[in-house]
């Protein structure tokens, strides 16, 4: 379980997060939506300790990550996979080497075993047989898929997705949404997703958090949020429908 307790964050004079509190349950897909620049990525990076809150605390499975030292953080990160906004693949390595990278760094599996896992994960994300390609040869959607394969290579308990569908054409975005749903069904782990795409959010989310004006204005089960009569939410969703 991931928990935010009264998290504040500013950059200089810019207040980005204001008293955010919520608990993200295990084994569900939780989606944070909000206009771009509202602080979704910052909120997500706090889970892996890449950003620290100014005040408040962030907990992952009973560990307070904002107070951990490097070694502790690395222990927590071992059970988390993260898909970055445009994949963050290492350019100097092929697709296969990228996916194998966490395996080589953290396990002592033999090369044959690693190759097997790599092709299995690539097949799982719908990119079978492109082990030998270079990141620069891939389209945006393909890079995200490879990034996802890398994120799940170590079979993490938690997978974080930073805007998995942004910058993609609608068809590709739908395909990625389907992939997320399918993977969650197969892997049964905790997914946290950032998005500014409202229809996609309603399709994949179990829980939805709405970030607006640096506050978490709503957080709850999908149906609950969808049915809400709150004026702000209705305005927000109707204005942002459609991609």
């Amino acid at each position, binding site marked *: 379980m991931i928990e935010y307790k009264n998290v504040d964050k500013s950059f200089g004079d810019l207040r980005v997060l204001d008293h955010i509190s919520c608990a993200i349950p295990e084994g569900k897909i939780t989606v944070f939506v909000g206009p771009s620049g509202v602080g979704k990525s910052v909120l997500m990076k706090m889970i892996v300790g890449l950003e620290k809150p100014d005040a408040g605390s962030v907990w992952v499975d009973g560990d307070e990550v904002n107070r951990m030292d490097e070694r502790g953080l690395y222990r927590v*990160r071992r059970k988390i*996979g993260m898909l*970055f906004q*445009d994949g963050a*693949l290492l350019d100097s390595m092929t697709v296969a080497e990228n996916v194998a990278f966490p395996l080589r760094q953290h396990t002592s599996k033999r090369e044959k075993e690693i190759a097997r896992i790599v092709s299995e994960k690539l097949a799982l994300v719908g990119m079978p047989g492109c082990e030998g390609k270079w990141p620069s040869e891939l389209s945006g959607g393909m890079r995200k898929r490879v990034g996802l394969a890398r994120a799940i290579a170590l079979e993490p308990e938690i997978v974080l997705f930073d805007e998995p569908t942004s910058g993609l054409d609608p068809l590709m975005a739908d395909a990625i949404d389907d992939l997320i749903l399918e993977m969650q069904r197969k892997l049964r782990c905790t997914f946290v997703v950032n998005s500014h795409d409202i229809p996609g959010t309603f399709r994949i989310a179990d829980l939805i958090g709405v970030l607006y004006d640096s506050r978490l204005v709503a957080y709850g089960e999908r149906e609950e949020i969808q049915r809400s009569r709150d004026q702000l939410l209705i305005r927000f969703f109707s204005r942002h429908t459609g991609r």
Partner: protein
Amino acid sequence: MSNTVKPSLLTGVLAQVGRWGIFSFTAARWTCSAPPALGSVLWEAYQIGVQSLSIVCVIAFFIGSTIALQGYYAFREFGGQNLVGIFVALACVREMGPIVAGSMVAAKAGTAMAATIATMRVKGQIDALEVMAVNPYRYLISPRLLASLIALPLLVVFADFITVFAGYLVAVYQLGVNSGTFLENVATYIGMRDVFFGMIKGGVFALLICLLSCYQGYYSQPGPEGVGRATNRAVVSVCIICIIMNYLLSEMMYG
């Protein structure tokens, strides 16, 4: 990320120096406490060495010949043109060898380090490393640090030989200095000690080049301009600091 108050020039420079100190300390700590795999160090050393070898040789050749020319004409004023061997030997082995090797490694390998690491920073790949629980210092910096420590002193030896060789060619064949006199002068005034001190200089330059270049890359500003700026800053800061360091080392070794 820190949110700093608008800095004045002085506090800005001090803050940079402090941050560089912390960066270097962290890099050193990781290199000692969890040394990188020998294979990756040797591979990097091979890369750095081979990348810079040909240019070090070419430039060493031109520097050596120019030093011989200048020395010859300067000494001729006092009728001492046959002493050019001493001048070439001392200037090349003690000063120019380490400087040529260092500056070319800074220009080729140093900029490559800064650009690679800055690109990784800008594209979020360093964050990705951290999320994959791979320490960027250990993965990116330590191998480069040890590798440049291996490669640069070796390049210094190459540069020593070639500068003196070029000086010999110019002095003997272009300026008509007696070959035996030249070689005798070189042999009397330069010993293994000088070559060895030059290698130590090379090692110090290697540390400075690697730590400064990696630092500029690691703290690169966002965007594609950030990469370019990081690379340029790396070259300039390395040059200035190495010149001053070179003097201090010469003072300590030969002073």
